[in-house]
């Protein structure tokens, strides 16, 4: 288990060991995020492995992973903390029975840490076994501006104030990874606090390596063909291009169907694994699939 990071090469190697095939520029961004104690902001199309980075990082640094999935209307109650009302009510009943309900001290006790339900952001401020966690803030673009503003505050000084309880400060700031699918622009102020990295679709060789690493049972020829086909498909005019996640799903599906190589029939049947819009499927199915496959096979024959 790696716990300290000394160089970019070390990150590159560690990512490889954790089956994550990455560019050196991503490794540099990760390295600096750790060295400078800054959040890592990953942007890219869906399915290029943004979330995976946080998981690998947690594994690599041997720290717990805390994940906050964003959505519109995400509020303090779900992101930071909530009081455990049921327990508080019960406690009041007990206090009444014991005759201490008028005791100010006992009433104050109702708002102590004992009755606090900690949600991801608050959990992230706590070190476990002396190690601060990796905090993954996933798909920040889905949250609204109100949450973004709040997050900016938390990320600048890693402390959260609970009015009834006081300010809770992180002994050691967590390693923060933020991802966005770019369904809207994240505010510049937030991005400036972070190390920004755009994750692009991988090229042939890299995607092939990813397939080999993640679906080792796939026959080599099939893996090459699948990657070649997906790469060609990304050059087509589509509403939603298939990501790496789709490539992996597709290979897995084809392996499950006992395919040794790509056939037109198999592609037509499983196109839904790759393309998620009806318009896209209609556009590609039939003639385009045939052409793409032919071109792929010609390339193979020439040993490309």
């Amino acid at each position, binding site marked *: 288990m790696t*716990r*300290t*990071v*000394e160089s*970019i090469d070390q990150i590159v190697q560690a990512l490889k060991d954790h089956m994550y095939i990455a560019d*050196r*520029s991503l490794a*540099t*961004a990760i*390295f*600096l995020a*750790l*060295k*400078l*104690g*800054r959040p890592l*902001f990953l*942007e890219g199309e869906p399915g290029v492995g943004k979330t995976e980075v946080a998981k690998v990082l947690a594994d690599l*640094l041997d720290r717990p992973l805390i994940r906050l999935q964003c*959505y*519109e*209307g995400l*509020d303090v*109650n779900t992101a930071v903390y*909530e*009081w455990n*009302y049921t327990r*508080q*009510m019960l406690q*009041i*009943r007990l206090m*009444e029975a014991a005759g201490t*309900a008028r005791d100010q001290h006992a*009433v104050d006790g*109702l708002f102590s840490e004992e009755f606090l339900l900690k949600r991801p952001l608050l959990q992230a401020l706590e070190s476990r076994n002396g*190690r*601060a966690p990796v905090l993954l803030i996933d798909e920040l673009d889905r949250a*609204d501006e*109100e949450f973004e503003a709040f997050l900016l505050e938390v990320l600048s000084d890693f402390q959260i104030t609970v009015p009834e309880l006081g300010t809770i400060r992180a002994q*050691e*700031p967590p*390693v923060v990874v933020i991802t966005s699918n*770019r*369904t*809207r*622009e994240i505010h*510049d102020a937030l*991005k*400036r606090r972070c*190390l*920004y*990295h*755009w994750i692009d679709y991988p090229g042939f060789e890299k995607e092939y390596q990813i397939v080999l690493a993640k679906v080792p049972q796939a026959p080599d020829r099939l893996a090459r063909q699948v990657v070649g086909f997906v790469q060609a498909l990304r050059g087509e*005019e*589509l*509403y939603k291009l298939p990501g790496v996640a789709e490539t992996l799903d597709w290979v897995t599906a084809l392996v499950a169907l006992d395919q040794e190589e790509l056939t037109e029939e198999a592609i037509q049947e499983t196109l839904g694994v790759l393309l998620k819009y009806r*318009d896209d499927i209609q556009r590609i199915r039939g003639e385009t699939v045939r052409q793409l496959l032919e071109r792929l096979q010609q390339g193979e024959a020439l040993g490309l």
Partner: protein
Amino acid sequence: MMSALPETAPEPTPPHPAGKGQLLRNIVHFARLLRALGMDVTPTQILDLVAALEHMDLGAKQDVKAAARAILVGRREHLELFDEAFELFWRAHRHRFPRVDLGQLLRKRPAPQELLRMAEPPSKGKGQEPEPDPEPELDKIFTWSDTEVLRRKDFARMSEYELAQVKALMEEMRWDLDTRRSRRLERARAGAQLDLRRTFRRNTRYGGEPLELAWRQRKEKRRPIVALCDISGSMDRYSRVLLQFLYAITHSLGRVEAFVFGTRLTRITRQLRIRDIDQAVDAAASQVEDWAGGTRIGEAVRSFNRHWARRVLGQGAMVLIISDGWDRGDPELLGQEMDRLHRSCHRLIWLNPLLGSPGYEPLTRGIQAALPHVDEFLPVHNLVSLEQLAQVLRGDAPRRHGWRVRPRRTG
């Protein structure tokens, strides 16, 4: 700083004998270059980069580049420009040639156009036109009726002077937006959801017996607006006024995404955010490479659907398409793409300056293909029509003017 990491990371020895001061100077120079190219680089970012480079081998060019990229760039659009700037800077630096040819880089960006530059109203001091300066009372009456006439006059028939007045009037218009219920909750007197936290707080004094209830309700939010404005040759007479209109709504409504198109789609949102109206409109105009050319509405909408729809149509956006519908593209494509656009936004409004001319019938093939997918088809040729639009956007339109097109949802 991560305390789990040893602070004694081996310091890489910089290959250059130059000290830290030199490095800082270079970074500041580089940041200046980036700023000149339109990127926002703050002093904090510069300091961050200096701190980052302390951990790195300065001879490893690609690593240094990746570090600078991660710290100085925050938008995907800037990555390419950054890469070029970096290469240029590195090369210039290598050859101990301290100046970078900014012009070479800047030339890659669209050159500012003088097109559509509109004359200002004659300035007061050196008026070529004699400044009318009658009795104040008279002036008021004159101005009032003048304004009334102006409000109804077609933009295309206005003199430069009148257009300048329109600009001022446009800035005074009140814009407001239809709202939607967001998923965020706010306090309310009565509502659908119990606010447990406040309820509990309030009732501790009754021994936890919930006597007074506190409520929450869904918060209302303004809908975002996305405008696609035609700037092809046939729209020439309206283009500048419409850009001013886009400026006006950008500044009073906040969440506006603006695009212009002729044969290709250009995003001008950022340019319109510039505070000064003339600078903003000029900056927007200079982004465009296909002024006053042909129109391919279908292609433009397709390009929007493909590259932007997912990014800007969230949260129940309203889409404005501003065009006269003279289209050289394929009407079938336009129909398909309008259908798609219609399905991905809250309301699709087509604004057509020609609708203001008496006797105009929307018979062009483009319009015919698009109309079934449009919620609202309105004129946009004078100030009165803009006021009507303001009502429609607020969601309280009388809907007497223009045509109300029944939305036909397919699928």
